[in-house]
Every structure is written in C-alpha cells, then in structure tokens.
C-alpha cells in the first residue's frame, strides 16, 4: 500500500510515495527536505523525537540529488527520501550519543554501513533520534537527554528503545527512520506509535557502525509508514559487508514481495501469546480482527504452540546483559568520549568516568551481566540461558514445519503513561515478552498496525517468519495493513 492520495501533503506520505514525487519531478529533493525540516522545527518540541538535526547536511545532500536529476541520471530506490537514524548508528561528522553522557563529544569518524548504503540509495539523512541509553529500555525514558513522548498522546511513552525513530515517523516528521532491535526495540515502539517496524534476520543487515549492545541479537531495521516502504528500506540496507563477519551474503527479497497475496498461506497463531495474562483486552480484540482479515484474504489460520516462549524474558535478560557487560567495558575514558577522574590513578579514571557517564539502567544491566558471567555463576546463569535459548529456537523450527508464519500481538499493552514502569525494572522488562523470542532465534519479525484499542491507542500485530524469509512476513503484514491499517493517518496535533 502507498500512503496518501496524489494531492496529500508530503508528511502524510510514506517513503516510496515521497520518492515517487521526487522521481517524477513533482517536487524537488530540496523542497522535500525543507518540508520535513520545517515540520521538525515546528513540531518536534512536543515529543522530542530528535537529539540532533542536520539541516545543513540534509539540504546539501538534497541539492546534490536535484543536480543528479538535472543531469538526467535515473532515480534510485530512495531518491530524495528524508530519513532519521537512531542515535546509536554512525553518520560521518554527526555526534553519536547513544542517549548517554559517556559519549559526550563523540563525533562519528565514519558512516555505519547502513548509513552509507542509504546515501547510495539516494536517501537524505536529516538527523538522529532519541533512544533509551545504549538501547536499553522499552519506553525511551532512559535517555540522558530526556524522554520522548508518544505523538498519539504525549502523556504516554512511545515505547523503546527506538522510541525517537517510531515517534518521528508516526508524527510525520520523516517518512522513514531506522532503529536497532535487540529484544524488540524496533517492533515494540512501532506498535505503540502505530507504524511499521521490521527486525530483519540476524545477519541480514551489517552491524558495522551500530554501537554494540547484545552482539548475538542486535539488528538494524526500518521504521516506516507502510509495509512496502519497510521492504524497500530493507532492500537498500541488506547484504554482505566485509566489515561485519556475521553478515550473510544472501539477496534480500524484492520490495514487490509485499504485494503477493496471502491466499493459501498457513498462519500459526501463538496460543501462549493470545492467552497471556498480561495481554490487554483491547489488544486481543484488535489482533482478533487482524486474524479475521487474514482468513478473509484466503489464508488459513491455526493454533501453534511455542512452549518455551514464556522463558524468553529470563533468557533474554541474561544473554543480552552478559553481552552488554562485555561490549560496554570499552567505555573507560581512555580513547574517546567522556573522561573524568583524571587527577587520580588509572583505576579511578575508569571508575569515575563510568560512574558519571552511565545512567542507572545501564549500570544495572552491566552488573547483571557481570554477575551472570562471573566465576562460579556463569554455568548456572549465562550457560543455562543459552541452553534454554536453544529450546526457544527449536520451538520455532517445529512450528515452521506446519505453518509459513507465526503471528500474535507485538506487545501485551498499548502505550503506557510516562513514569508508569520507571521504578520497576522487571515490569519494564516484561513489556518485551512477545518480542524477545524472535531475536533469540535469529528470525525476522515485523510489527504492523492492526487498529486501535478502546482508548484509540494503536495496536501492533507481529508476524514472525523463518530465517531469511522476510518476504513471508511482508506478505502477511501487508494483508493486515490493507484490512486494518490507516497508514496516511496522523495524530491530530500533527495533522
């Protein structure tokens, strides 16, 4: 589906619709960039999705695109599309903060591979979006630079950790943004903000230039207004990269894959997720309507069981924190970023830097991971978690023998009030109950809007597919979007 009729203002359009207007000459890349930069300047104050806006760089890139067009060069896949990057992805010459004080003054020395590929596809980088510090959180309240708000209701969180990217797309401040997903950090905020979010297969997209959190789980993916836009974005960024040894040399699906009918597909509905105690009735009802729509479109739905998915949160919060404790050891005040305590000895420099630089949740996770890996406990905690992780992956393998995709709610709740879970880390972790199994198994998963709850808040529908079968996830998500989505709708305050 392409968001917006032909005369709609640019900010109601999805990425490919903006691209087509530029490709057809209806609007210049520079005018498009100015339109979205003006939107950000006028409206971001209400939600604070952006940490940094690079107006000058964006206008320069847009002018180059218009010059290419004037020379008659063919338009590229994302020609002139303004995009925002989560602030844990490097863009050459812009600050990368990760929402943390510890990266104070850090300016990215080069593009992430994803950023370079986006530029090569014609995208225009307009800025960097807010996140939970080092992508650790489910609400974008943990940023050292203050929380981001949900554009549908600024008293509520946008989800996290890619909350800035999701809020920016939902508010029409950019037609496309990128985030990273370790345990749900693209899909959960996409669900809570009423936009599309894709976590690709592990290895589908290079992690080079993405600041590491949980290296066996981290993947970069798009936040978009439509499924087809997400498919086009994946196509632009995917593929083998010599700078990431875990990247796979497999061609991504063509964006047109999203247009293939679901007729004849077998779709598994996760029993444990639809019967989960924390599932809100409004979410369950919206997911039920999406399942009805899939059946009406010719798909067959049947119940499947993922018996170990209930252990996902426990596994995730041991594996991800263990990997984080190792990855974040590099922030020591020596080579880059914040340095504090330099008047003492080296040990106090490291400790003082980390004390001042890291926020409470990051410290909590580093300590949890350090504990889970420590001598005498590693087998019982980290080792045990990896064994149960195997069982979670096997559950999916078994399910995919009988169905083409596995579906359910993305998140048990719609957007919750700012502050509601801030004092209870475990309650916050449980937000990710439906989203952690996919990254633990390495498989792709997409969240697509499937309507609203009784309070009018968006509900996300999750589609999980076998490794490297994003095409199946796109097909199912596009069918839900066609029946239940409203991709050209903006929150009233952002219309």
């Amino acid at each position, binding site marked *: 589906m392409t968001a917006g009729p032909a005369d709609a203002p640019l900010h109601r359009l999805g990425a490919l619709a903006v691209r087509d207007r530029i490709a057809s000459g209806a609007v210049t890349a520079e005018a498009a960039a100015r339109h979205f930069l003006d939107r950000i300047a006028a409206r971001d104050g209400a939600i604070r999705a952006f940490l940094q806006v690079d107006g000058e760089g964006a206008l320069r890139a847009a002018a180059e695109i218009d010059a290419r067009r004037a020379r008659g060069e063919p338009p590229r896949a994302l020609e002139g599309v303004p995009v925002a990057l989560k602030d844990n992805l490097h863009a050459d010459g812009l600050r990368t903060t990760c929402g943390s004080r510890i990266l104070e003054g850090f300016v990215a020395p080069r593009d992430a591979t994803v950023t370079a590929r986006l530029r090569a596809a014609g995208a225009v980088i307009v800025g960097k979006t807010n996140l939970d510090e080092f992508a650790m959180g489910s609400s974008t309240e943990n940023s050292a630079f203050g929380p981001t708000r949900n554009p549908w209701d600024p008293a509520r969180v946008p989800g996290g950790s890619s909350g800035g990217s999701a809020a920016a797309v939902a508010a029409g401040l950019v037609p496309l943004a990128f985030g990273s997903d370790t345990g749900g950090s693209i899909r959960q905020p996409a669900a809570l903000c009423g936009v599309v979010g894709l976590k690709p297969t592990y290895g589908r997209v290079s992690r080079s230039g993405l600041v590491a959190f949980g290296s066996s789980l981290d993947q970069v993916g798009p936040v978009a207004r439509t499924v087809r836009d997400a498919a086009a974005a994946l196509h632009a960024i995917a593929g083998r990269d*010599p700078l990431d040894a*875990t990247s796979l040399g497999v061609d991504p699906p063509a964006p047109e894959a999203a247009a293939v009918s679901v007729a004849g597909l077998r779709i598994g509905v996760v029993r444990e997720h639809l019967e989960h105690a924390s599932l809100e009735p409004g979410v369950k009802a919206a997911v039920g309507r999406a399942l009805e729509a899939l059946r009406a479109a010719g798909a067959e739905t049947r119940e499947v069981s993922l018996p170990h998915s209930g252990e996902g949160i426990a596994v995730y919060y041991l594996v991800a924190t263990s990997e984080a404790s190792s990855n974040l050891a590099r922030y020591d005040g020596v080579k880059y970023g914040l340095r504090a305590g330099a008047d003492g*000895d080296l040990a*106090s420099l490291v400790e003082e830097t980390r004390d001042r630089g890291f926020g409470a949740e990051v410290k909590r996770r580093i300590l949890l991971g350090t504990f889970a890996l420590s001598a005498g406990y590693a087998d019982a905690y980290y080792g045990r978690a990896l*064994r149960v992780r195997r069982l979670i*992956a096997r559950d999916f393998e078994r399910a995919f023998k009988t169905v083409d995709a596995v579906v359910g709610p993305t998140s048990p709740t719609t957007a919750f009030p700012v502050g509601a879970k801030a004092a209870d880390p475990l309650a916050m972790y449980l937000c990710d109950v439906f989203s952690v199994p996919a990254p633990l198994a390495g498989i792709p998963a997409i969240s697509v809007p499937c309507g609203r709850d009784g309070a009018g808040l968006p509900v996300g529908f999750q589609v999980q597919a076998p490794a490297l079968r994003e095409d199946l996830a796109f097909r199912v998500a596009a069918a839900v979007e066609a029946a239940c989505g409203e991709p050209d709708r903006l929150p009233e305050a952002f219309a």
Partner: protein
Amino acid sequence: MRRIAALARIRLRDAEAKALAKDFAAILGYVDRLRTVGEADDAEPLTHAVPARDPAANLRPDEPAEPGSAAAPLPFETLRALAPDLSGRLVRVPRVLEEGR
C-alpha cells in the same frame, strides 16, 4: 554486590547498593525459572542463531587493507580528534606504575 561492582568497574554508593540488591533479588528470583526447564539439561547452548553460510568468506589475505577503503583503519588524524588527552601520537592516561618500580 560489591564484588560484582568491582569487577565491572562500577562505583556503588550505599544507597545505590541497597536499591540494586532489591532489583537483583527480584530479577534473579524471576530468572530462576530457567532451572526448572528440564529439557534444557541436554540442549546444546545456542550462542549464534544464524550461522554464516560460508565461513570462509570471512578469511582474508594477511595484508593491510587498501588505504581509503572501508576496511582500512581510521587515520591517526581522525582518531586524534576523538581522544580526550594526547601526548604526541599516544593517548595519555594517569601514571600506572609508581616511580622507581
């Protein structure tokens, strides 16, 4: 708590240590459920969910990358701008060894 904090080079004030001990009790109490998953005893630990299709693709000739290519190390001038304190081409840190040792 103190031992773990020392390993992680994280400073804990008394109030923080107390609050964290409470969080840890709740979180570790929750993850203890993994002990009761009987099938896990015989499961192979899963560290990497999607293995490389062609591990040999990660092998490379043992020679420096072309200057200017994406695989080339960042030039000194670039890294210098990021370092908090430099002495010539070296990053400066507080003295590690005492005089005379």
